[in-house]
């Protein structure tokens, strides 16, 4: 980091987005659109806000930030999200 320090350590909002937490993942959630009933539970349950609604009302996963916690998969009522070992 080379930008000058702001007096008092004041920080810009939402700036953690520069930190791509996707690299933390061991298991990767795989979303199967065919099974999805668009209930939105996974979106609401993700602590990283990386289940994103697409224009057609379905979802996609933002792997830049997904830590692979598996909450989405655990909470999905239709077993739509499968956790698979991440291939690195």
């Amino acid at each position, binding site marked *: 980091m080379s930008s000058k*320090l702001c007096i*008092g*350590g004041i920080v*810009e*909002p939402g700036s953690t987005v520069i930190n791509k937490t996707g690299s933390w993942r061991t298991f990767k959630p795989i979303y199967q659109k065919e099974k999805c009933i668009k209930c939105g539970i996974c979106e609401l349950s993700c602590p990283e806000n990386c289940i994103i609604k697409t224009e057609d009302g379905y979802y996609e996963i933002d792997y830049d930030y997904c830590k692979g916690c598996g909450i989405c998969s655990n909470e999905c009522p239709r077993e739509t999200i499968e956790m698979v070992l991440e291939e690195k």
Partner: protein
Amino acid sequence: MSKLTVVEGSYAVAHAAKVCRPDVIPAYPITPQTHIVEELSKFAANGEIGACEYITVESEFSAISALIGACAAGARTYSATTSQGLALMHEVLFNASGMRLPLVMTVANRAMSAPLSIWNDHQDSIAQRDTGWIQLYAEDPQEAADMTPQVYKICEDNKIMLPAMACFDGFILTHVYEPVVLLEQDLTDEFLPPFAPEHILDPSNPKTFGAFADPGVYSEFRYMQELGMSAALKKIETVADEFNEIYGRYYGGLIDGYYLDDAEIVLVAMGSVIGTIKDVLDELRAEGKKVGLLKIRSFRPFPTDAIRNAVKNAAIIVPLDKSISIGKYEGALCTEIKASLYNTKIDIPVLGYMFGHGGRDIPPERIKKIVSEAEKAIVNGITIESSYVDLREELL
């Protein structure tokens, strides 16, 4: 000519705080500060401080914490405390200066318990020396009142942005009735611009205050506080001059001198004892003794250069301290003056005295005796570097 009114020192200070137009005053009572916050609550209850929010907090810890929240939200803040209350704030004092919030507090200096003592000395604010607060010390109620707008102007400067304590001696100055000029609102408005910080808590421009720092940046933040203090060295002087221009009163900038120019013996002190010393010096000068006084107005930032310059021709320097570092057996002025002279070509003996702790009076005669002890030390050298004035050996 400004009108003189006979009021209590606390009233003069409360009135001065009022004309600075504070937005938020969280306050908690403690002797001998209590009259200040009581007077302010009366002003607030009568609608005399505009839309000011007066918060009756449940502790000094919350008083200073509320100051932090209020100041970060863009408010000009004021509070007052002393001794136990100031010590309770200790953790938060560091926090305020690190966040660069220009809080202003009056400290009505009082001794620290135990033993419990409500009387004056400087141990309370001296113990907060390293918290990153500007500390100025006033010698009488008028200076304490006048110091209030001065510290706002100093600490709200965007190069400084550090909190400040305006210290004045508990009881001796808080409770004395004296003729003072109550600060005029119009002059104060001319002297002190409104508080306009660059960063505030505001939903339309959401900033984060109080992030945590890793070892890669922590020292730099601390150094930036030091830069703020350095900027204050100059600002304290210019603000004293600006104050003089507008109100016609001057008490010195970082330091002040009394018979200092040709003094061989230089007494060094802060606070209300300055008045007593000045009277003694008038007498001693009449007797032809070359004694002078160095008044320390700014203890933080410590005016190292100004002090070196002021004492360089002295034969002996005699700091008089209302504090003690137990385990070093000397007061803060003594330690700091010695440290300021080291690594210079100035080699002047320093003879330290601790006096007035827990409210013990120091009579003018005793100051004269100190001067004669200093005269002897010039000739014979110093045997005891630092000692208590009139320790009651018979009780030990």
